[in-house]
């Protein structure tokens, strides 16, 4: 079983800090990479398309971000290699309760789950277990 590598994508730097600390303090993993925008995250992934060991196996993706929102990120993500798409599991994270966001995330095949902020490590653990990581 691979060690868990998590990628955080969120335009809010405080939330990035918060989520990093949560994951570390609840001993989920300390191998965390953070990006404040979709583009830089995509660059990171596309440079490692053939190296599954360097790819995160879980991506926590914020929905509402300026320039490129979560859904737009997924569109670009789906253009990456099969290795990337199979290795990286996307969980969407949202602070809104807007129904269209909820249904959009639910119907998107690349999205494993949608969780609401504030993040609960319980839910992350559940997702990790469900994925068999």
């Amino acid at each position, binding site marked *: 079983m691979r060690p868990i590598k998590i990628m955080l994508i969120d335009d809010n730097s405080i939330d990035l800090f918060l989520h990093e*600390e949560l994951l570390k303090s609840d001993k989920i993993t300390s191998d965390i990479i953070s990006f404040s925008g979709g583009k830089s995250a995509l660059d990171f992934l596309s440079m490692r398309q053939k190296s599954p060991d360097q790819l995160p196996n879980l991506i926590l993706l914020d929905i*509402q971000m300026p320039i490129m929102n979560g859904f737009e990120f997924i569109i670009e993500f789906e253009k990456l290699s099969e290795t990337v798409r199979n290795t990286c599991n996307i969980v969407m994270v949202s602070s*809104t309760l807007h129904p269209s966001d909820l249904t959009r995330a639910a119907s998107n095949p690349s999205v494993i789950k949608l969780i609401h902020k*504030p993040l609960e490590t319980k839910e992350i653990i559940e997702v990790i277990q469900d994925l068999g990581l």
Partner: protein
Amino acid sequence: MPNLNNTKTKVLYVDDEIHNLTAFKALFRKEYEVLTAKSGDEGLEVLKQEEQDGPVHVIISDQRMPGMEGTEFLEKVQALYPASIRVLLTGYTDMKSLIDAVNKGKIYRYLTKPWEENTLRNTIINATESYNDKVFLKEKVKELERANEELSRFIYSASHDLRAPLTTVIGLVKLLRSDERSDFDKKIIENIDLSVKKLDDFVKKIIDYYKNERQENVIEKIDMNAIVDSILNSLGLHNSQNITFHKNIDDTINFYSDSFRLYIIVSNLISNAVKYHNPNNPNPSIWYTFSADEQNCTIEIKDNGMGIEKEYLDRIFEMFFRTETSSLLAGSGIGLYIVKETVSKLNGSISVESEINHGTTFKVKLPLKNNTYETNQNNADR
């Protein structure tokens, strides 16, 4: 009488008797732009040609004509040029066709033959006014729809902007909690948490209220299981009291409604049931039942929680009404008000039964063939 574009009123008069057409034109050609036709077919031709030059405000037609009768002509006109005001000229013996016209052609008014100049003029003036009023109304409705659209967009961004920092604070407070601290620190943190959660709750509810007030119903097929699951999912986080949730959803009959409004109703009622569970009860539970028949669907949410005092039962749906208990538990007093408003937007009804220390049952009944949906459709067609 000036029209909205300050153009002359355009009137089409259809009659098979030529001297009527000539007389009409002679009388009114100074005041109005008069068009004439000897038959229904010719009338339709004229209307087609006039289309580029602006609308024909009033269309007057004789009933008794060879070929196409007046009522038939006006019925065709209504389909092609619904904005024009239609007037029928009938003789005393034409009662049957008059009734026909009222039902089918949906005429504005009928006049009896032989027509009299002043009556005719008055009719044209009133008809023109009616035409202009309708155009004005249509424009205002469009403006209103645009404003609504803007408001919806504002609500969406306000919702995110308001809640985002709140959820961050809630998360940070949780982090603070996980360390070893003095009792004093713990107490402070606990209170920060409560206050922020109260704020978050309130913000969510205000947004719900705005959305309910402004938006039209969007009717779609309802997946009750999905709605309940997503509510439990978002609530489960704040629920560390291990409440058992019993779901009994019968979705054999398809139910159509506004899913967002349903979400508001169900989530408020379930979260109340969670909030007011009885901490002394070893087995706190909530039972959720959904069933539908040909006429209605019924949603029942029952809990074995704290219950509500009898004397307050008829006040719980009031805006900002709180009891001592709900105040202590940081209730905002707006949740049930919103539920009631939302239920009425769906033309449904809500009732409550409760006994102190035993529990509460809320019952929501919603019409299946949603009346709101049909009313909206009728308004759109008119």
